[in-house]
């Protein structure tokens, strides 16, 4: 088992050296591109539209200040001064040179970070709730289990050549903040009637060209059986998954074609075999990781001038209203720092911003930072008496936009501005929508709404899960955008439905505007969110607004 904590990173240096040697052999002609490509992908190196791209894993989105500073160093030294938070809690660099990437991997290894299994048909970065270990509704912190899954899955010999990529998400809250139903395996921590800890296990979810929500394969899996059961699922899939057609190779298709009952039967049989050979080392590790992820020493202090500051400062009040989450410790809040300021590319962070966040986490946040799957960064533990000072420093750096969960907090993949697979651009559409509703000054009036944009059917922007989803396509050599409505990645998992034909780029903002006006007209109160109103009235009024001629 691989242990990637910073003090145990010899292995990462070895892997970086291995990649350095592979790059050298590619450059001197010893390796062809066909031979080299799978090797670079195993190290997170893609060749995109304008340049190589390096995807660095941020395990379950949890990152220390020193690691964040190293991400900033990479951006400054080997890229163009910024990085891009992804919807899988990772970071991507858009401009590295192949010849520099071994040095970048060395720098990452120094702080226990790596790019292993951020691509390829392997088990990818395990994702979780950005507020893990902090959220008021949490049953138990999922990170020790996420870490044992990461340690177990990294370079797992049996699972290096799966039929297709494999994504695991784990959530410890009453409310799912990890999009469990959209993953190959989703794990929800829960207690049974006897009060014992375990997992509700979901399989077969995924987005992409065939979006399918996962199904529960096991209602309650005892905590200690996590690894053998997950291993049984993946080994069953490894044998049963299709390898004849990459578009039918994900486990969602395996489950859909063979049926959940057949899969369950095989998984349960395999589970008995696997469990018998587990020696208990996994349990020792979980216990160790629980100690690593023990809650910080929360301060037992008064709120200070928090309420007075809120009363006196409109900007601070607005920011605390939108960008805070309830914390389990008295006097604390979790802060969402959005990377969706006016004009900003969703999820792009400059090196200076990364360094500032590292400093602020040390000063006000128990040295803890999280990358969220909404392409923002959370400081999970901030005492209320520190919030105004934190806000002031964020504001000075342009990082205090009060829009978490609002219409300008848009999730967008890089699209055809960077991605070689994209069929249209995502970023300008996101920017135009955000600019439009800011100009109308109705963002607060609209309230919570989730817009997600993907630049191709692979759905990295999770458009199927947006209350409003936008999918960019190439229609006869012109960018065209399909709109979906009613998707949800949080409360009641749902795949958005397409109300009709797509729109050319210049008609997307007017179309979204008509949807929003319709919502504002028909909602029964200001508390009724867009998605709630949509569920109440259905698609018809929105369809009529989108396609007035045909209505």
């Amino acid at each position, binding site marked *: 088992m691989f242990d990637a904590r910073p003090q145990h990173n010899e292995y990462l240096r070895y892997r970086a050296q291995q990649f350095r040697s592979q790059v050298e052999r590619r*450059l001197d002609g010893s390796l062809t591109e066909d031979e080299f490509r799978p090797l670079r992908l195993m190290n997170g190196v893609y060749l*995109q539209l*304008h340049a190589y791209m390096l995807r660095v894993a941020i395990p379950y989105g949890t990152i220390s200040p020193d690691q964040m500073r190293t991400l900033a160093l990479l951006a400054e030294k080997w890229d163009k001064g910024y990085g891009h938070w992804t919807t899988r809690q990772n970071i991507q660099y858009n401009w590295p040179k192949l010849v520099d990437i071994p040095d970048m991997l060395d720098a990452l290894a120094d702080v226990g970070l790596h790019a292993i299994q951020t691509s390829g048909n392997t088990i990818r970065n395990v994702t979780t709730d950005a507020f893990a270990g902090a959220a008021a509704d949490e049953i138990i912190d999922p990170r020790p289990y996420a870490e044992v899954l990461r340690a177990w899955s990294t370079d797992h010999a049996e699972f290096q050549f799966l039929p297709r990529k494999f994504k695991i998400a784990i959530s410890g809250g009453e409310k799912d903040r990890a999009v469990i139903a959209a993953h190959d395996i989703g794990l929800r921590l829960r207690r049974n009637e006897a009060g014992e800890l375990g997992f509700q296990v979901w399989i077969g979810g995924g987005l992409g060209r065939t979006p399918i929500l996962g199904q529960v394969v096991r209602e309650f899996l005892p905590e200690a059986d996590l690894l053998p059961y997950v291993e049984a699922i993946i080994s069953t899939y490894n044998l049963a998954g299709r390898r004849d057609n990459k578009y039918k190779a994900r486990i969602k298709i395996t489950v859909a074609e063979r049926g959940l009952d057949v899969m369950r039967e095989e998984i349960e049989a395999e589970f008995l075999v696997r469990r018998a050979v587990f020696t208990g080392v996994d349990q020792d590790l979980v216990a160790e990781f629980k100690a690593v992820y023990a809650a910080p020493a929360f301060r037992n202090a008064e709120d200070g001038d928090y309420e007075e500051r809120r009363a006196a400062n409109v900007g601070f009040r607005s920011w605390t209203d939108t960008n805070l989450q309830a914390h389990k410790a008295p006097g604390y809040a979790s802060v969402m720092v959005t990377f969706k300021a006016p004009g900003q590319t969703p999820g792009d962070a400059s090196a200076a911003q990364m360094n500032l966040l590292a400093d602020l986490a040390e000063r006000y946040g128990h040295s803890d930072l999280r990358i969220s799957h909404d392409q923002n960064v959370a400081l999970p533990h901030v005492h209320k008496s520190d919030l105004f000072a934190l806000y002031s420093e964020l504001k000075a750096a342009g990082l205090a936009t009060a829009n978490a969960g609002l219409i300008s907090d848009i999730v967008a993949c890089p699209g055809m501005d960077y991605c070689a697979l994209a069929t249209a651009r995502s970023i300008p559409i996101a920017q135009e929508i955000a600019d439009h509703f800011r100009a109308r000054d109705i963002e607060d009036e609209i309230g919570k709404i989730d817009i997600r944009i993907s630049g191709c059917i692979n759905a990295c922007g999770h458009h199927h899960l947006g209350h409003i989803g936008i999918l960019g396509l190439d229609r006869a050599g012109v*960018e065209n955008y399909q709109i979906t409505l009613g998707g949800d990645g949080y409360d009641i998992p749902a795949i958005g439905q397409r109300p009709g034909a797509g729109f050319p780029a210049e008609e997307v903002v007017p179309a979204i505007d008509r949807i929003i006006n319709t919502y504002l007209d028909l909602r029964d109160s200001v508390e009724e969110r867009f998605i709630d109103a949509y569920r109440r009235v259905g698609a018809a009024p929105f369809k009529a607004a989108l396609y007035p001629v045909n209505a």
Partner: protein
Amino acid sequence: MSKTFTPSIATPAVITANDLRMGHCVWMRDGGWTADPREAQLFEDEAIADLAMLDAIGQANIVVGPYLAEAKRGADGRPEPTHFREAFRRRGPSNYFHGIQAELEASNV
């Protein structure tokens, strides 16, 4: 996005790829490679294009993934893109002034 079309006077093409070491886009010219898309060689003959593609594939120690991209002859005789994807590759991203647009400005041409 390699397309199955036949380079001809009616449907000219350029040969484009990415630089192996650095990753940036390059275009074939006289058997070599240029980072300036305006300098790309326009292929209007199938046989010549086929030979040039063989040559490009043979330069795997310099470039990655060469392909024929449909183009058109501009008013000044230089190649211009026919599809937005190639237009973006020639220019760079739309959210920052990075990539070829910045390189060309920096070289002041």
